[in-house]
């Protein structure tokens, strides 16, 4: 299972750079980053090379931070790939609360990160559709 680190931040300048600097200093690589903006505050979601360590150092820095399990789907970087995955989930009645992706190599492979309401079922549905979901180690060692 893949792990995402979520940080609570006020909507003011300098928050992302602060987080990125802390991670950089600790030699933690950021694979992907998204922000759920709620106006006065936001949640920053990051996929890193070392989620547990990222969690520890950010907590120590004084942030409100949490770890969350997410599904990382390895897929072809081609038109329609995301549609395929989400259609499977839709047919099984699984709701996606957050989704974002990053490309590993242009035209080759991409990783889709999903936050879903039914984690186990979602992973099963995606696998049975012929997609590969990444283990924790696989995601970290990309």
């Amino acid at each position, binding site marked *: 299972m893949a792990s995402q680190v*979520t940080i*609570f*931040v*006020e909507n003011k300048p300098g928050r992302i750079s602060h987080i990125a600097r802390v991670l950089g200093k600790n030699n933690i690589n950021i694979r992907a980053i998204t922000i*759920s903006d*709620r106006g*006065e*505050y936001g*949640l920053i979601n990051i996929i890193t090379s070392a989620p547990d360590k990222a969690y520890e150092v950010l*907590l120590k820095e*004084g*942030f*409100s*931070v*949490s*770890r*969350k399990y997410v599904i990382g789907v390895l897929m072809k970087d081609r038109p329609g790939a995301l549609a395929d995955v989400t259609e499977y989930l839709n047919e099984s009645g699984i709701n996606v609360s957050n989704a974002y992706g990053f490309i590993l190599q242009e035209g080759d492979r991409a990783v889709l990160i999903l936050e879903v309401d039914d984690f186990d079922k979602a992973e099963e549905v995606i696998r049975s559709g012929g997609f590969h979901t990444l283990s924790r180690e696989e995601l970290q060692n990309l």
Partner: protein
Amino acid sequence: MDERYWNREIETIDRESLGKIQLERLNRTLERAVNSPYYKGRIPDHVKDISTLQNFPFTTKSDLRSSFPAGMLAVPLDEIVRVHSSSGTTGRATVVYHTKSDIDNWTETVARSMYMTGVRKNDVFQNMMGYGLFTGGLGFHYGAEKLGALTIPASSGNSRRQIRLMKDFHSTVIHITPSYALHLYTLFQEEGVDPNKDLSLRIAFLGAEPHSEKTRMRVEELFGLNAYNSYGLSEMNGPGVAFECQEKDGMHVWEDHFILEIVDPDTGEVLADGDEGEIVFTTLLREGMPIIRYRTGDVAQVSPGPCPCGRTHRKISRIKGRTDDMLIIKGVNFYPMQIEKVIMEIPEVGNNYLIEIETVDYLDNLNIKVEVRPSIFHGDIGELENLKKRISEDLKNEILISPKITLVEPNSLPKSEGKAVRVVDKRSDQT
């Protein structure tokens, strides 16, 4: 009948005769007051001279609270026809009981006050104050009806409907908080309404919030009307305690209904007219719940000298401040402690909070900042939004207005140790 006065005889009574009426009514009040558990044994039931009152103990808001629910009730509950209560759901509310005669007397002071500013039977009065436990709604409503004006119980809020009512019924008189008046004007502009041309307004009563002369002038200019300052507090009925006449230079305190004293807030010593101090009132006609020497916490001074309007009742200045940390927002009074108490009961929040008051579009906004600490954060937006909603609802139950809750990062607010500043008042117009 003299067109200028609602009750010429009492409004223009000479000071000596007024003093006699006060002494007689004070003695009746003391006789009634000692029937209450609170005043029994605490004060004598008779005085020979009104100046003796200076030696009586004060009654404070906390005395009112600690005598909840009926410690100051001086008549059998059967005789009570109305109760008004301040905010608070936890038994710390202040309650005021009224008999039929108390309501009549209150109504009389409001009708008299409104008449003094020029309101007449043919006026259309739109009362934009909250109806309910808050006294500004019902108090004015009864007074306006007694005066004979067509009365629209519009209550507060719903700005577009307020504007429609003003147009449909050609309202000539409004009762409104100054901040809401200024806010409403911005909506007039949005809707293309020019109050000078499209409406019939001629008088506004600005109440429930201390405001400056500048604010009055601004309201008068924008709306094209005469605005009058109105002062009251629920412990002394509500509106109708003190009111401006058409001279707009201080508010006449109806001294046939209340004894007015100004005291040094520190020593409690009675001050001379002209000296600034805390306003202290004693009810003179209350039956249900007489209150002796009530410390209002409001700071003002008595204007010496007679008023050109001919009324002999002394005038107080605008309220210049508070002797305590009471906050007045949107016409509602409360203390930071009330907010603290509610917040402390929400385990996720604890003691990390900050109360901020600011003016946005002329409206006072109450903003409570709350830290999202690591222990309560699970990375879920729904959870955070629910927490915000819960804090806001719990606070509304206590202080009757909904504050905006802002979530902030841990350790960004003042620490709870020592004398942390918990209230930041950013309002500019506080005079």
